[in-house]
């Protein structure tokens, strides 16, 4: 494993250099919090800011993505034949991605990249992307990533994991992709492997110690779907919910989308937009029938999917990386930690 020390004085120059090869993404501070943005020329990622309001999933899976297009002009030979929007296979790198967001992308990959089906848009973007993460020295009060199977210095899904050492970054190159990015920046001051790893371990332990928030998921696996599905607590959990879908939009692991066609004059396009299981429209049939017509059904779906169905289907833990974004953003303070607690401890009364 290779470690590289990056003096912060050289950081900006190196990043600038990488632009020759990479299109860069990273957190940028805005007046309403920080956001993962396309870093245009001269823009630097804000590596020290609080967690971004939305996760980094949008780099691979934008909220609105044009996927197909065609012409309606019947004088053209190929009218009404949908064609794929030329993919952007140019290399890109996400700088400063949080370790749990990187893990989340691995969970999303389970959906977009399967043996039977490969989503070309997502997968092509994924393959073109290098994930350069930064460890979280001081996790916030909402971070329960350790309990969700990841952590402040988790390496899953990352190509490079960096540690912030005040004056310098210590970068652990995890994959060849990561190495290539470092090279493109011209970062080549190798650090001692053993010392560096020790430093990482200390930082990780220190950070993990800071995490006070946790959830228990140990009993979820053993409960039957029907038992949880029919449990009586859902109405109370759902009461305050306004079905806005904020939780799903801020969630790094939510992957649902909706397809929309738009046409003007002779040109037509097909888009995919993030969708949310909180919206009644999500499951509404063309007949007018809606199998998830009530708010309670929709709220239950979200938590059951994250904490039970996913767990059962993939055996890769829960579909939550413990970032705490939904806890912070929910307008009515529905807290997944509480819901998880209720589900995990639920015993059906005979």
């Amino acid at each position, binding site marked *: 494993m290779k470690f590289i020390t990056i003096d912060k004085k050289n950081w900006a120059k190196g990043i600038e250099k990488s632009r020759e090869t990479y299109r860069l993404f990273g957190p940028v501070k805005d007046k309403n919090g920080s956001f993962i943005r396309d870093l245009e020329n001269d823009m630097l990622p804000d590596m020290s800011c609080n967690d971004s309001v939305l996760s980094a999933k949008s780099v691979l899976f934008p909220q609105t993505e044009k996927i197909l297009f065609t012409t309606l002009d019947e004088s053209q030979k190929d009218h009404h034949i949908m064609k794929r929007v030329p993919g952007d296979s140019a290399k890109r790198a996400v700088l400063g991605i949080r370790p749990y967001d990187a893990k989340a992308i691995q969970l999303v990959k389970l959906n977009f990249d399967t043996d039977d089906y490969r989503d070309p848009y997502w997968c092509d973007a994924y393959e073109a992307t290098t994930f350069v993460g930064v460890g979280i020295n001081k996790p916030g009060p909402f971070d329960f990533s350790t309990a969700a199977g990841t952590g402040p210095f988790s390496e899953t899904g990352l190509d490079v994991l960096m540690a912030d050492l005040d004056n310098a970054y210590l970068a652990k190159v995890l994959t060849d992709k990561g190495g290539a990015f470092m090279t493109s920046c011209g970062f080549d001051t190798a650090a001692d492997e053993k010392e560096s790893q020790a430093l990482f371990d200390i930082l990780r332990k220190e950070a993990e110690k800071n995490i006070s928030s946790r959830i228990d998921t140990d009993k979820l696996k053993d409960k039957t779907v029907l038992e949880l599905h029919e449990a009586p607590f859902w109405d109370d959990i759902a009461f305050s919910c306004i079905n806005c879908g904020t939780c799903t939009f801020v969630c790094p692991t939510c992957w649902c989308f909706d397809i929309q066609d*738009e046409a003007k004059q002779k040109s037509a396009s097909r888009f995919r937009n993030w969708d949310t299981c909180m919206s009644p429209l999500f499951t509404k049939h063309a007949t007018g029938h809606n199998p998830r017509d009530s708010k309670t059904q929709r709220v239950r779906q979200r938590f059951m999917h994250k904490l039970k169905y996913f767990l059962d289907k993939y055996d890769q833990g829960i579909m939550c990386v413990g970032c705490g974004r939904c806890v912070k953003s929910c307008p009515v303070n529905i807290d997944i930690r509480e819901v998880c607690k209720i589900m995990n401890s639920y015993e059906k009364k005979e």
Partner: protein
Amino acid sequence: MGNLLEHMGIERDRIHFSWISSAEATKFVDVVKEISNKVRALGPNTKLVKDYN
């Protein structure tokens, strides 16, 4: 509605409401002419216009 759009920075003359009965052909013509002239004077609108490409 007009006030709100104007407040959003869209020229007032781009939106027009009029109450014209089916018997008021002349008024209809006058109103349409007036609006067309006003809008023509303003030039193409760039605000709240969707770019489809």
